[in-house]
């Protein structure tokens, strides 16, 4: 019994139905991890991207290296790094938060490239006009560049959000009770892994297909010219 739901192993179908509520609770954790991870990736990626555009070579080159390093190393090892090393320095986070942070960190390397592409796609004349109007750098980004870049970056961001969703099972390794972890726990107790793991294996493609469709719809609904941030 997990979360008060008992399983019924009399037949595969009864077994599948009896564990669905447990996996459903795991699914919520999976979605929460993906959403919080992506929120972190969106913010951190923007920070990387802006720092890379710094006029100080020391800053822009360091950030370029850090981003490349994050991009070229596995999420699992980054997750272990955060999970085991942060507490050594007195920073103890719950496993879920560590997991979301690792997801966000890994994907910030990707999102920073998406932002770069989006900013570069804003016509030069817009930058020049903003400079001519003597706007501060902060205002140029907030009022001119980012609003126009949003529709351009939406499709790639959507793709990364979906692929992040598919990486959340890795969090089960550091005791986050996501769908995969719960499926394994059920298997450990019933010695029957086939049904729970197959259900998880089917839920993911369905979920990613739905999310892709949702993101496409959102993308089409957004105004193509961009929208103001205030």
């Amino acid at each position, binding site marked *: 019994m997990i979360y008060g739901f008992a399983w019924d192993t009399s037949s595969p179908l009864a077994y599948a139905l009896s564990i669905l509520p447990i996996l459903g609770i795991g699914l919520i954790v999976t979605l929460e991890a993906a959403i919080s991870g992506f929120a972190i990736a969106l913010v951190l990626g923007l920070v990387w991207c802006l720092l890379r555009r710094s006029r100080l070579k020391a800053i822009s080159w360091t950030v370029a290296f850090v981003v490349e*390093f994050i991009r*070229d*190393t*596995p*999420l*699992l*090892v*980054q997750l*272990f*790094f955060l999970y*085991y*090393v942060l507490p*050594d320095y007195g920073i103890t986070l719950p496993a879920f938060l560590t997991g979301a942070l690792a997801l966000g960190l890994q994907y910030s390397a990707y999102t920073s490239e998406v932002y770069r592409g989006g900013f570069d796609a804003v016509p030069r004349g817009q930058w020049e006009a903003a400079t001519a109007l003597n706007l501060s750098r902060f205002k140029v980004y907030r009022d001119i560049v980012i609003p126009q870049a949003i529709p351009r970056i939406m499709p790639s961001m959507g793709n990364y959000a979906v692929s992040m969703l*598919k*990486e*959340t*099972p*890795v969090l*089960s*390794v550091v005791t986050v009770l996501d769908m*995969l972890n719960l*499926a*394994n726990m059920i*298997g450990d107790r019933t010695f*029957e*892994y*086939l049904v729970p*793991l*197959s259900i*998880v*294996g089917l839920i*993911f*493609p*369905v979920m*990613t*297909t739905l999310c892709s469709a949702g993101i496409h719809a959102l993308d089409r609904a957004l105004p193509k010219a961009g929208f103001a941030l205030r």
Partner: protein
Amino acid sequence: MTWTHYIPALVKGAEITIVVALVSTVLGGILSFVVGIARVEGGPILSKLALVYIEFMRGVPLLVKFFWLYYALPLLGVSLDPMTTGITGLVLNISAYGAEVVRGGLKSVPDSQFEAARALNFSRAHVLLHIALPQAIVEMMPAFGNLAVQNLKDTALVSLISIADLTFQAQQLRNITLDSARIFTLTLIGYFIISLAIALAIRLVERWTRRGAAFPRAAHG
């Protein structure tokens, strides 16, 4: 313990990581072409099957694939050893993404090439092997390079099905010494170096695919 004490065990793990990455990338690359060509040239039934394969394999997370192959498949009577499980999982994963790359590459070959080939009465196999693929492969290489690096990063997950790769060795070392910061820093650096090597190798292969390229395509450089 100093930094250097960890190196031998980590290098031993890195060797396994490199073998797993190489074998799965090569086999996955071959399967990518099979599935990708089936998707584009396969006729109504075969191309639908290829589409289902691509969508399903891309939709299922790699770790779920591993655990399913490792824990669930034996209940159906098929027991694979960890190494076979790991490489199978990676190949199923990379081939689905690779098939889309192959499809995109074949789509990038101008229609006029196919029309000219048809006018010359070449067979379909000849058109594919000697006209379409040699041109398409040049377009596919950068994407395959990204997939190879992605695949290397994905190999870290084989440590969870008890293969003694770089990540596995790092975990073992940590369990003994509790010296997390140094061990995982070295591990991250190890993966970074292997990634750079793969990126370099792919660039060399890319140059090889360009050999004898006709002049309009060489301009892509």
